[in-house]
C-alpha cells in the first residue's frame, strides 16, 4: 500500500498515525507541508528514523524546492521524487491511502 501524508508533523498527527500503520512493503510519500518532516535533526525526523523496517519513504522534490529545503538537509534513506515519480508509485501499489 502507498500512503500519502500532506500535513506538517508539527501541526498534525497524520505522519505519526501513518507510520504506525505502515507495514513491511508499504511506501510513504510526503507531500505539501509534510515535507518539513524530513529535515535532519528535527523532532519529527526521529520518528522517521525509527520507523518500521521495510517501509520506503519518498518526498516530493517540487514541494521541497518550494519551501527552500536544501537536499543536504535531508535525513538519510529518503528518496526524492518528482510528480512523475509520484505517479509511478501510485501505479506500483495496488491501493493508496491519504492521511489527511
Amino acid at each position, binding site marked *: *500500500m502507498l500512503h500519502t501524508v500532506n500535513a506538517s508533523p508539527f501541526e498534525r498527527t497524520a505522519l505519526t498515525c501513518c507510520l504506525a*500503520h505502515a*507495514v513491511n512493503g508499504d511506501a510513504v510519500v510526503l507531500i505539501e507541508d509534510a515535507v518539513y518532516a524530513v529535515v535532519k535533526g528535527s523532532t519529527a525526523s526521529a520518528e522517521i528514523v525509527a520507523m518500521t523496517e521495510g517501509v520506503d519513504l519518498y518526498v516530493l522534490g517540487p514541494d521541497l524546492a518550494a519551501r527552500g529545503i536544501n537536499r543536504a538537509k535531508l535525513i538519510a534513506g529518503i528518496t526524492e521524487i518528482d510528480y512523475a515519480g509520484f505517479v509511478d508509485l501510485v501505479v506500483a501499489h495496488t491501493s*493508496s*491511502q491519504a*492521511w*489527511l
Partner: protein
Amino acid sequence: MSDTAIAPKIIKKFLYVNRKAPYGTIYALEALEAVLIGAAFDQDVSLAFLDDGVFQLTKGQNARAIGMKTVSPAFGALGDFGVTRLYVEAESLAERGLTRDDLMIITHDFENGTTGEVPSIIVVDRARMSNVMAEHDIVLTF
C-alpha cells in the same frame, strides 16, 4: 439517482477511513453521505475509525445547541444498507480515554433478519487495522 446505472458486475472492497471528529469540521457528515451512496451500489463497504475518528461513534451526542444536525444516529441505520463492519482501533480509543462502553451500540440483523442482532462495531488493534486497510481495494479517506 440516474447516475447509479453502471456495470454492476465488479464488486470492490471499499474502506472508508474516518480520522476526524464530528461537528468541528464537515468531514464526518459528508463521509457518511458517501458511505450510504457506496452501500447503495452493492459494493462491499466497511468503515474504519481511528484517531479522532473514534469520536464519531461516542454515545450521547446532541448537536441541537450548536444548531447542527446530530450525526451519530445515522450510523445506526448502516446495517439496513448492508454496511456491517465498523472497525474501531483500540489504541485510538485508549489514547483518548475511551473504552468500548463509551461507544454507541450499533447492530445489524443476522442473516436475513431471522435470529436477532449482531454488533457492527469491531474493535481491532493497530496491527489488525493495518491489515484491514491492506485488504481493501479502495481506501477513501475523509
